[in-house]
């Protein structure tokens, strides 16, 4: 009696019991038809597993690519939005303190936000005084956490420009003790 297709599949998957496996082995040694059937099942199974694995890999790659693209787009969007926000604030402050023509004079096409900010701070520092310019700068950068680094850089530059004023504002600890 020939084994059923389900039995051959189970044999092929090594899921058949030992008695059943022995019976199928005995039968396959005598029956060419069942050997052919087993070969066909094996081939189909191999094809299925190969196509399944490669299909899964393709989906993964596509998914990862899409995910990375989305992440990059999100990050770029955030950066562009931040830069645009900083630029708008710098422009509005320059318009308030100096005037609209000054903005067009200072801003070149394609100018980066930090460059515009640095130029604006330098000019306001010169024309308005360091303390007031610092307040304007804080106003421009208010709420922008990513711009903190730029603010620190500008503070360092301001200290380098006006070391005496900075010393007056933030006296060294040693001098406080002496006082």
């Amino acid at each position, binding site marked *: 009696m020939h084994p059923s297709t389900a039995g051959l599949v189970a044999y092929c998957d090594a899921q058949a019991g030992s008695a059943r496996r022995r019976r199928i082995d005995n039968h396959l040694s005598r029956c060419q038809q069942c050997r052919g059937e087993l070969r066909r099942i094996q081939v189909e199974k191999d094809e299925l597993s190969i196509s399944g694995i490669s299909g899964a890999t393709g989906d993964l790659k596509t998914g990862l690519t899409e995910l990375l693209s989305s992440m990059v787009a999100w990050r770029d969007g955030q950066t562009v939005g931040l830069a645009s926000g900083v630029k708008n604030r710098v422009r*509005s402050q*320059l*318009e*308030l*303190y*100096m*005037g*609209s*023509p*000054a903005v067009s*004079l200072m801003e070149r096409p394609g100018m980066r936000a930090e460059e515009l900010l640095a130029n604006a701070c330098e*000019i*306001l*520092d*010169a*024309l*308005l*005084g*360091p*303390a*007031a*310019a610092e*307040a*304007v700068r804080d*106003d421009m950068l208010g709420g922008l956490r990513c711009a903190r680094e730029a603010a620190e850089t500008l503070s360092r530059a301001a200290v380098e*420009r*006006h*070391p*005496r*004023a900075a010393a*007056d504002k933030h006296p060294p600890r040693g001098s406080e003790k002496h006082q």
Partner: protein
Amino acid sequence: MMRKSDFEGIESAPRWILLFLGANLAAGMLAVYVWHAANLVFSIQAASGSTSALSVTGMAAVDLWLCLVVLRGFPAGAPLRSAWLLITLAAAARVVSGVMGSLSGSGAPAVLAAGGPIQLALLAAGIFTLLRVLRRFGFCREPGTADWAVSGIAVLFTLCRLGEVAAEWLAGRPIPLETWISLAGLPILCVLFLEAMLLRQSVVRIGNGLITRGWVALVCGIFLTGAGELTLWVIPHYSQTLPLAMFGALIRLPIAAAFALVPASQVAAQRRATKPANGQPEDLAGGTDHRLLWPVMPR
């Protein structure tokens, strides 16, 4: 529409100055009108002199105080420190001239020198420093034809005055010391006119912001100084009946107010920076209306 908060704090100084100037000018105009309506039957020269001198000296004192406030905002090493220092010294010279004039008479040489060539020279040096800083940032521009024409009028006036004095001197008439002091200030006034025109061009290039309003006031102050000198020189040539002291008073106060508006606008800008006006329209935040000062300035 004005609100109560618009007149609070030191940042409202430009508004107070303009208000005071407006009231004073209105009173002066009314006095001239009454004098004219009364067919010149009484003299208003003596009555106006001491009052106007007090107003001018008071305005100069406010100017000096505001200059000192501004100067505190520019520590040593700041690019505009020296410019503001010189402008403060010019304001101090005006105060000294006003106070000494009240005490020892306005004709004293020291009074005339302090209120004339000395303060003009200090102002010229201050504006020169300011223009250098503006040039560094690329905000300077060549003067236009109108600027050259206005400066030319100042030069022409100076030459006329020099010619007049030279003619008197050649005729053997004695030249009083105050005339020499006055003449010494005229070449400086020419330089100031040229600087004012350069500053005006810079303001046109930059725009009318809170900072530049002070410079507009400075240009106006210099322009009014020149116009006042010219008017006071021209009037006696054409009319002996016009109340010269009254006109002098009417001119001197706007000049003092214009110079006081320079630090007042700067203080307003500095205070606006350190204390941002919450919910205030930015255009009204502590500044003067540029149309009152210089009608040709751009918005």
